[in-house]
């Protein structure tokens, strides 16, 4: 695979066009963190890539799953390059069902991978489809593209949890 093709893998190009979860704009506004009846908690984050000015707004919902909690859905709205759009799309597809702990674990690994300048190997089991983004690590200027949705999701998760604490404290 040429350098470019390993960056823009077929899966990435497809996700960049299909854009799973890119429907936030069409959803009704949610008062962040207010738990709907019987439903989970929601956190929202807006992130800007200072290199290019592209932005993403991402909403993450947290619900109960078995004994614990799990991400239930991710919706987002944003414009950006193929990398950033594919990354948001893949994340939205993978996240539902993950516990906050394993979700964070995955984000941490992804971040480390991205910052490695190509020196780390992707943990394919952990990252699944997102492992296709491993090629980005060799393009330092594009790392922020791949990270954009992930930083937003991390922050949104934090918001959701914080609102839960706030709610419990009532």
């Amino acid at each position, binding site marked *: 695979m040429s350098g470019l093709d390993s960056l823009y893998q077929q899966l990435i190009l497809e996700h960049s066009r299909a854009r799973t979860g890119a429907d936030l704009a069409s959803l009704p506004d949610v008062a962040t963190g207010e738990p709907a009846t019987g439903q989970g908690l929601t956190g929202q984050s807006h992130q800007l890539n200072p290199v*290019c000015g592209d932005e993403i707004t991402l909403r993450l919902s947290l619900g109960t799953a078995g004994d614990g909690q799990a991400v239930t859905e991710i919706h987002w709205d944003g414009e950006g390059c*193929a990398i950033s759009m594919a990354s948001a799309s893949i994340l939205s597809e993978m996240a539902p069902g993950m516990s906050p702990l394993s979700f964070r674990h995955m984000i941490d690994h992804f971040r480390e991978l991205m910052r490695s300048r190509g020196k780390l190997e992707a943990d394919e089991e952990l990252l699944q489809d997102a492992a296709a983004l491993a090629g980005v690590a060799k393009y330092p200027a594009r790392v922020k593209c791949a990270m954009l949705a992930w930083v937003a999701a991390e922050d949104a998760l934090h918001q959701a949890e914080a609102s839960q604490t706030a709610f419990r404290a009532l």
Partner: protein
Amino acid sequence: MTMVSTPAWGDAQVSALDDDEVRRIRNDFPVLEQEINGKPLIYLDSGATSQNPRSVLEAEQEFYEQRNSAVHRGAHHLAVEATDAFEDARATVARFVGVQDDELVWTANATAGLNLLAYSFSNASVDRAAGGAERFALKPGDEVLVTEMEHHANLIPWQELCRRTGATLKYIPLDDAGALRLEEAARLMTSRTRILAFTHTSNVLGNINPVDVLVRMAREVGALVVLDACQSAPHLPLDFKALDVDFAVFSGHKMLGPTGIGAVYGRRELLNAMPPFLTGGSMITTVTMEEARYLPAPQRFEAGTPPISQAVALAAAVNYLSETGMRRIALREAELGQRLVTGLSAIDGVRVLGPGPGEERTGLAAFDVAGVHAHDVGQYLDNLGIAVRVGHHCAQPLHRRLGLSASTRASTYLYTTSEEVDLLVEAVAQVRPYFGVTASGAAS
């Protein structure tokens, strides 16, 4: 629109540089010998920063190895030689843009130059009104006029000046093609207009603004004229006196010189009446613990140790340009600009910003590829060894006006061959197929 067959700076006697000469010129630029991903580097990002000929690198090296010293403040041998080299450099660059030595102030870059003007006016507005600086003082009701196509460097300093003084910032809007709406300019220029600041040629559109028309309007209302010559000083023969502007700024690194140096031209009587901006050593006559008195220009505006070796190197750069011939360079780049706009416009889904084929433009072209983000376009080109710039090029309002958030820009210089332009055009034609975008602009 002026047609390219009669550029304002054209001259029947002089012909454009041709490809053979360009190939010879390339030998002087070591960085161009490089390969990227196994392909020869095609450097089409001179609008951001230009490359340096060997003579410029040698001038700087020679300075450090033979006469490096602080300037003006020393009586010893090296200091005298360094001062001579530094002031000769000023004279060389001043001549290059048609002004007197003491009308050229060194700055760190063009941005620092525009801030120098804005802050000096700001200082005049605070408490200097006593010292003959009234004419530079702004107050509520006064207006500063810019254009919608400005680089952030020629926009934000004026926004901040207005915030500090209570003056109002207005702007000349663009039409859908990106040209200045001159009838609006005429309407906006009133007795309230104190400063008109605009770019000579846009770093995105590649157009050339009608300096004469705008200066005439400004003169009628008594406004000071500030010209952003960042993109013209490297590419067009310039004479600030003939253009009749009050101030102009440019950057060394865009005209074959090093980073770390720029310049402000200001009419002598204006510079000497303006309050200082940066203060410190080398710009004073007498200092007590209570107050300082300042030297006339240019020293008045050059606090601290100046960019000495950079000035020497920049002088070598403008000598290189002068020897090659600015008219010939400008004619050559006009040809390349046409080649770019013609080739790119012909590609399905590609929209070139600014003047169309056959209309006057400089040697750069920014474009949008429908359905593909500029950063992906740039990445595709980089893989082929083609270096272009992607993003908003520090002109967010301009992009917003044209309905875009980013674009891809190819910018040429005296070392760019016609083949390089053709290779770029060919490569751009491959971008949408690569990213799987159909001709209609939708994803396939």
